[in-house]
């Protein structure tokens, strides 16, 4: 009996080892087993239709269109009449071989795209013929379509989801589409809807052998919701037309709601280029164009010094801080001397000498001396320059400057409003109002984006408050209820202080820098700006042609449109920016351009700054000799 113990013992040991191993496999490893993430389960998605996008007047600006791809599963293909087949597809035999080899290389047993995007006629024809060819079939896809061919920067585009997102998000799989820019990105969740999931059982050869657990885990697709934008498509297109041959941005806002009426960047592109067969080639051209940068939204992302329009903010702060009043006046002698050194002098082009200049005149004639004086008074009102700077910055920031505005588009810039801390951190010497005097006229450290300036205009038009600009008006037919966009934000300036400023802006169009851009019957209030800009090439500072800036709203009472325009290297504000602004206003308020201003329109469309832009990409020495 004793000799039988060996086998008995071994049986016992082995069975314990086996059960232990089963425990390890089934209880320990098996606990993190997910029934739907299993190679025996294939998940098939049912993609819902992406939501449409309309403009404020109900015009369809982003649509879907059906596209038909010829697919092939190489394994299933039987010998075929290649010549006939090629004639159906309108390709030659070489092309056929190449495409087929590519599909075979990808995977013999999986379908891959053989020919992309058939025309509708070809589809109708092929649909009847294709069943003869085993292994080939037609796959219907939905792709984006932009009937208005404009507002590329607003609507954005969709693209294949990147690997990182595909791996880390439950919502996306490799190869699926995701909104990558503009409204498509910002409202991705609303537009895309919810894809349906079907769990199917498959075998080791990837063949479907039935539904998994009778559809226990399956979900149905939910179509994407439609969006209505605040954009006026006609105005948008008109602005894009006017910006032909120029670089810059126009932002138009409805002051009474904060709705963005137009958001124009130039140069831009036809959004249809980012769709379909030629997308790959086109998009790399667009993205790699580092000279024109068509993929940058200059209305949102370009941060420039605002120039003269910023003087109005200084005037308003002066009034609010009670360091000046409407009747305060200065004398201007071609500029303002703020120190003893020879170059401590700020020139002025207002051209009024020997007469006292009050606020209204100062704004209308853009007098540097007046605002330098005011700015100094504001800063010096407080015991330290730092505190004065902080108070000043607080007022400026209440206009939505110096930080992201909070609009519903994915790109943007903060701009900059310097405060006391900013200078204390950057200057290791004692600084005061005169050190930062450039801020008085919107140069120096102040930087704003066109949409921020447009918002300032809206705040002035509203006499003291603004709604955060936004691009979406309705989601699925319902007005948006985001309180960030429906509750007005008050500036720190009391509303009575706006009256002289608005008067002065009206004066600009009546007698000032905007007088050649008047529109009959519309009381436009505006302010030109011209901003010096420099480029640093190999350590040498070169001055380039001035940027042209304009901000305006109309009509004077009960304003309906407020806008800011920025034209890079556009020279004086009155030559390009002001006329474009007036045309935009006329177009929006009257719906058409009157004969009286037609010549202005054609002149603006035909004005091209390409020569000036070309100068910038020339070699540094020729650039230096090209400027004064």
């Amino acid at each position, binding site marked *: 009996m004793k000799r039988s113990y060996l086998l008995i013992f071994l049986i016992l040991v082995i*069975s314990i*080892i*086996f059960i232990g191993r089963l425990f390890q*496999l089934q209880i320990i490893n098996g606990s993190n087993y997910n029934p739907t993430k299993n190679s*025996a389960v294939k998940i098939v998605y049912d993609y819902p239709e992406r939501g449409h996008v309309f403009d404020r007047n109900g015009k369809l600006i982003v649509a879907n269109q059906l596209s038909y791809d010829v697919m092939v599963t190489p394994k299933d293909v039987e010998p075929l009449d290649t010549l006939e087949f090629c004639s159906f597809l309108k390709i030659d035999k070489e092309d056929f071989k190449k495409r087929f080899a590519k599909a075979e290389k990808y995977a013999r047993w999986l379908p891959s795209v053989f020919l992309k995007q058939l025309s509708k006629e070809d589809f109708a024809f092929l649909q009847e013929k294709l069943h003869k060819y085993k292994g080939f079939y037609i796959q219907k896809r939905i792709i984006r379509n932009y009937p208005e061919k404009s507002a590329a920067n607003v609507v954005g585009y969709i693209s294949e989801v990147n690997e990182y997102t595909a791996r880390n998000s439950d919502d996306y799989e490799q190869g699926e589409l995701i909104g990558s820019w503009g409204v498509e990105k910002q409202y991705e969740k609303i537009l895309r809807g919810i894809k349906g999931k079907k769990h199917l059982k498959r075998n080791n050869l990837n063949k479907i052998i039935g539904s998994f657990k009778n559809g226990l885990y399956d979900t149905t697709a939910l179509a994407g919701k439609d969006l209505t934008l605040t954009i006026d498509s006609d105005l948008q297109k008109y602005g894009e037309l006017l910006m032909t041959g120029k670089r810059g941005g126009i932002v138009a806002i409805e002051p009474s709601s904060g709705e963005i009426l137009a958001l124009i960047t130039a140069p831009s592109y036809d959004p249809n280029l980012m769709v379909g067969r030629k997308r790959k080639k086109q998009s790399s051209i667009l993205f790699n164009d580092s000279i024109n940068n068509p993929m940058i939204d200059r209305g949102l992302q370009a941060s420039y010094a605002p120039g003269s329009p910023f003087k109005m903010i200084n005037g308003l702060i002066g009034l609010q801080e009670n360091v000046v009043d409407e009747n305060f006046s200065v004398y201007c002698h071609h500029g303002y001397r703020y120190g003893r050194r020879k170059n401590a002098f700020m020139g002025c082009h207002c051209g009024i000498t020997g007469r006292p200049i009050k606020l209204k005149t100062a704004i209308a004639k853009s007098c540097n001396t007046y605002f330098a004086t005011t700015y100094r008074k504001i800063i010096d009102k407080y015991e330290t320059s730092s505190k004065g700077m902080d108070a000043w910055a607080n007022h400026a920031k209440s206009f939505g400057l110096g930080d992201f505005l909070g609009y519903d588009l994915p790109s943007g810039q903060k701009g900059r409003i310097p405060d006391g801390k900013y200078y204390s951190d950057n200057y290791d010497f004692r600084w005061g109002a005169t050190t930062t005097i450039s801020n008085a006229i919107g140069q120096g450290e102040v930087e704003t984006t066109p949409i921020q300036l447009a918002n300032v205009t809206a705040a002035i038009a509203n006499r003291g408050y603004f709604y955060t600009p936004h691009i979406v008006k309705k989601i699925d037919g319902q007005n948006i209820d985001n309180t960030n966009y429906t509750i007005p934000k008050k500036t720190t300036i009391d509303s009575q202080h706006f009256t002289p400023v608005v008067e002065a802006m009206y004066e600009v169009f009546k007698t000032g820098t905007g007088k050649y851009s008047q529109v009959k019957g519309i009381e436009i209030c505006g302010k030109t700006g011209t901003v010096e800009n420099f480029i640093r090439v190999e350590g040498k500072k070169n001055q380039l042609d001035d940027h042209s800036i304009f901000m305006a709203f109309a009509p004077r009472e009960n304003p309906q449109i407020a806008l800011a325009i920025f034209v890079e290297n556009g020279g004086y504000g009155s030559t390009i920016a002001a006329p474009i602004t007036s045309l935009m206003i006329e177009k929006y308020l009257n719906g058409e351009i009157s004969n009286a201003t037609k010549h202005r329109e054609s002149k603006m469309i035909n004005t091209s700054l390409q020569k000036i832009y070309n100068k910038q990409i020339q070699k540094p020495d020729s650039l230096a000799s090209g400027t004064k």
Partner: protein
Amino acid sequence: MRQERNNIFLGIDWILVALYATLVIFGWMNIYAASTTPENNDFLDFSTKYGKQLIFIILSIPLIILILFLNSKFYERFSSVLYIFSLVLLAGLFLFGKNINGATSWYNFGNIGLQPSEFAKAFTALAVAKLLSDRNYNLKLIKNQIKAFIVIFIPAFLIALQPDMGSVLIYLAFFFVFNREGLTLNYIIFGAITVLLFLLTIYFGAFWVLIISFLLITCYTIYAIYRNKRFLRFNWPKIVGLYTAVGLFIIAFGFIFNNVFKQHHRDRFDVLLGKKVDIKRIGYNSHQAELTISSGGFLGKGYLQGDRTQGNFVPEQHTDYIFSTVGEEWGFLGSSLVIILFVVLLYRVIYLSETTTNKFGRIYGYGVASIIFFHLLVNVGMVIGLFPTVGIPLPFFSYGGSSLWGFTVLLFIFIRLDAHKKYDW
């Protein structure tokens, strides 16, 4: 004799019969799960695997009746004839056999294939029992040992020529029988150490195993000298022999593994030992089997609910890998139960063997237990990833007529012999 024949059913060990029936029926249920498709699930469809297996099971009933009705003395008396008959069948394969998957293991009669190696096990067990049960037979004698080895070597050799290395491996099980009947344990220890050294050599390389083995032997020698200063005086040939043997073995293993083994053999070892991670090709079977078993969890997915089984992810899942289906659909509970059922069966066979007064019956029973145990060890060990891939069936469970009948013959001859013991005096 007349009386015995009439009362044969009284002596039958019904526990073994019940275990047999349970395993066969449960096995069939799993074969059904593994080979059914939604379009094709009529279990009387005899073109399918489960349909055929059903026929095999039904046909095993007359076979059982025949075995039980034959006189128990018949098996003892005709063991040599049956043994030689099986050898002839094995040898005949080289003339009439059919080559399937590179091995000539099958006779083909129309649609039906017959695998003589499945029956040879039972008949070899009879021959071994016959040889060892001789009253004058003493396994301590080298001469007798060689006789015994020859009895198992001939069928093993013929099967090795097919080649069917999995089935050859099973003949090692007879060493447990020999050991039980007086063969020194040294053979098994020697075998175990050889296997261990072999695996270590593959895993760590000949060089390191050599150094460590020599170190261990040296340590042992020093320890022995420490205990008995004159140790070396009498034992130096042993120590020198040990060094030489171990050294030669290890070097030989390295040589055999690299030069004699075929690449697919090497791959199987490498994958098992974790030296190669390849879940696509060489390790595909094992990997898929492990995944399938793991996915069963504690309670399993339920009968006929195994999505991985239905997806045919595990190759040969109705034959050698049937245990993976058990693991997926019946979970930890079901698969442990199957192992426990086997253990109970084995203990029952050993218990009955040990309690019989008939030496022939005891040795045969021990052979039965050893063979079934080896099958269980190699098959389940392979499916759950503890053994290299060796294709042998799981007794009573796996699909296949020869395999089922082979084990039926093996077990029921024992049941018949056991039933006889009650009338042996």
